[in-house]
């Protein structure tokens, strides 16, 4: 047994990310780690990689217990992790990337370029990468070569456990095939490989065993030869829908937004859908399916081709400013980077989009009117803050989210797009947010909810559209949707 993780438990504030998870990996084995977004795959691998520390549990390498306290220690134990995004320095040469931080030096600390070059070529050709100039910068080659360089870097450090997180996400079919050949070779050499992916067909092609995680718990481990995709999907999503999703029924109103043949080369293909007032339309899919890009495009952030019809008129939306004026608003999935002004207080953050409403004839902002309006929303949405003058950085995730809902509600939108509306929000506040969304629905606002949490999508949406790889791959009504059907469309089975 190469690697044995036993009883790994890890909590973050408010969430148990991993609950007593075991993992076993033998020499020459490819273990696929499968699970929905947020199931705990990444957290488990970050513990193995020394990025997070575990609360409980033990890690054994070849039967010996080890402590892994930092990424460096993890590498020293022979554990190499290849992340989803390339972590190379694009302007440095391939050989410098492979030996970054471990350059062999000659006298006077001069780098031994000849050694770096010959050793890099040796490792890469061993992987089957030939006809490549290792002295050229990484940026001159594509993503696939980048992955190979990362694997070469790990091999040059004598790693015997290799973790690959969604390695084929950005690769073409041919490049994927090449990567699989490399994986097969590593396998023959006795390396143990943990392969993280949601692509079921890849798992059946390359893995020996599959381990499924769900909500931080170990659901089971099966041999690939003894399972099928239906069983795996069942294992991934098979949780009970609890009744924590209040849903109200409103007769659907008139068509408010229609998207016709929307395209962004390489990102979105042929997107068509309609949104009605008084409706909650869910967008489901895996991370990277293009849902956020679609939402931002409708919000005027991206250039696009195709047509957007708003309230019966074709419109060209060129900026968020224009979208907001029309009545289309987008609440981001990334509050910290894209929404909040952390140096400033609740009041500043809440009214920033609607200052025009509080301006007097002389151009001054009427503080009285502003405070009165903001106080109203604090009460209505039950935003818990010591005062309007508290810095938003001191608010909990749920209250930050309610604050941002207030910001957009003040603009009196007709279309409200919510991207992961309950991410980083504790359970109690989640229900409060659903209730607010339902109230807005009853007022006749057309609402789009993007969510990676299937129960949420199934619980609150009237209609559900599923995306995969920049395309719409399925559409369901609330009544006909099931977790299994949605997941099939999300992985495009």
């Amino acid at each position: 047994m190469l690697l044995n993780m036993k009883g790994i438990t890890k909590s973050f504030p408010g969430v148990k990310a991993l609950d007593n998870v075991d993992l076993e990996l033998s020499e020459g084995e490819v273990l696929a780690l499968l699970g929905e977004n947020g199931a705990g795959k990444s957290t488990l691998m970050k513990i193995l990689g020394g990025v997070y520390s575990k609360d409980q549990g033990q890690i054994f390498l070849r039967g010996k217990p080890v402590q892994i306290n930092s990424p460096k220690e993890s590498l020293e134990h022979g554990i190499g992790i290849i992340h989803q995004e390339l972590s190379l320095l694009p302007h440095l040469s391939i050989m410098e990337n492979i030996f970054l931080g471990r350059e062999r030096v000659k006298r006077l600390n001069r780098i031994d370029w000849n050694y770096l070059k010959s050793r890099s070529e040796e490792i890469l050709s061993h992987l089957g990468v030939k006809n490549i100039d290792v002295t050229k910068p990484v940026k001159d080659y594509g993503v696939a070569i980048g992955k190979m360089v990362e694997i070469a870097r790990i091999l040059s450090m004598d790693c015997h456990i290799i973790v690959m997180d969604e390695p084929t996400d950005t690769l073409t079919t041919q490049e994927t095939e090449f990567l699989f050949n490399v994986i097969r070779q590593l396998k023959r050499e006795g390396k143990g490989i943990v392969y993280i992916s949601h692509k079921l067909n890849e798992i059946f092609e390359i893995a020996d065993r599959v381990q499924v995680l769900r909500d931080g718990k170990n659901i089971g481990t099966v041999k690939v030869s003894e399972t099928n995709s239906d069983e795996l999907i069942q294992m991934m999503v098979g949780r009970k829908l609890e009744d924590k999703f209040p849903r109200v029924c409103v007769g659907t109103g008139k068509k408010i937004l229609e998207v016709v043949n929307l395209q962004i080369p390489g990102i979105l293909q042929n997107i068509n859908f309609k949104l009605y007032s008084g409706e909650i339309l869910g967008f489901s899919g895996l991370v990277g399916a293009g849902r956020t890009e679609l939402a931002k495009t409708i919000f005027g952030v991206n250039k696009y081709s195709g047509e957007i019809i708003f309230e019966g008129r074709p419109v060209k939306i060129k900026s968020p400013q224009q979208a907001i004026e029309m009545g289309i608003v987008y609440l981001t999935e990334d509050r910290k980077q894209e929404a909040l002004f952390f140096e400033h207080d609740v009041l500043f953050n809440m009214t920033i989009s609607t200052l025009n409403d509080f301006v007097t004839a002389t151009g001054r902002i009427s503080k009285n009117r502003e405070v009165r309006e903001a106080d109203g929303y604090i009460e209505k949405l039950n935003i818990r803050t010591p005062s309007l003058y508290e810095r938003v950085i001191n608010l909990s995730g749920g209250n930050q989210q309610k604050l941002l809902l207030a910001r957009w509600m003040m603009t009196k939108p007709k279309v409200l797009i919510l991207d992961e509306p309950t991410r980083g929000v504790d359970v109690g506040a989640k229900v409060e947010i659903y209730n607010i969304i339902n109230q807005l629905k009853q007022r006749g606002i057309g609402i789009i909810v993007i969510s990676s949490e299937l129960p949420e999508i199934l619980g609150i949406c009237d209609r559900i559209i599923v995306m995969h790889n920049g395309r719409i791959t399925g559409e369901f009504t609330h009544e006909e949707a099931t977790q299994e059907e949605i997941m099939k469309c999300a992985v495009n089975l």
Partner: protein
Amino acid sequence: MNHTNLIARNRAVHNVLLKLRSVIGLLLLSAILSILSPRFLTYSNLLNVLRQTSLNAIIAVGMTFVILTGGIDLSVGSILAFSSAIAASMAHNNFSATIAILTGLLIGLLLGLINGLIVTQGNVPPFIATLAMMTMARGATLVYSNGQPITGLGEGFYLIGNGYIGQIPIPVIITIGVLLIAYYVLSQTRTGRYIYAVGSNENAAKLTGINIKMVKTLVYAISGFTAALSGIIITSRLNSAPPTAGSGAELDAIAAVVLGGTSLAGGEGHIAGTFIGALIIGVLNNGLNLLNVSSYYQQFVKGVVILIAVLLDRRKS
């Protein structure tokens, strides 16, 4: 309960001290100087300090707008020189003082606007854009004036830098006016909020519907305008526009802004702080002169004071 109250009170006291830090620094500095030199605390000297400070304070007001958005303006000294040279040569050629001054101010505004457009439309980092403008405007000034000071400006031009209204010098009155307007814009208007928002989180500002290009262009235009205004006053006081006027002015202005507690990263700070910052530099200059410290040492001491102030500022976060 008592304990938490005490902590809360301590924290409140601490916060007030933090906010007033630059004022305390100014008072401390003044106290030391009044002990060291009996002439420091005289009416005429304090008026002198105010008059000298006003030149830097006006530039620093514009600089505050720019720095609040997370930018920087290195070109203020050169814009000052160029707009002064134009105004001075017009006055020299018998245009009325009013026309000459207004033209000078307009030139400053325009050069600032160009800075803003280079930053927003050309996507050039503010440091580089204004560095280029700094060099270009200085070069243009030298070409225009043929390297010679422009003199002979006439009576009308004399007033703005040397006159009094009641007991108070006109430059001081102008400075107070500029400070009040800037305070009003930053704290009471939409534009002010947008400036803070852009500096605090540019991405979020964009996704909030703020026209960030307009906001950024505006602050550079304001900075160009205040630089020109300061230049007009200097020209009037010297009764001459030397082509080297305002060299190094950007550093004093940035120092005043930073001493006043405005974050160089943008999003945080206020105009009152900038005024205190300018006063600290003014008092320091004046005090070192009164104490007959050689100008070489003056430079050094100024640098040390700025460094200490910024290091103290670091500790708050």
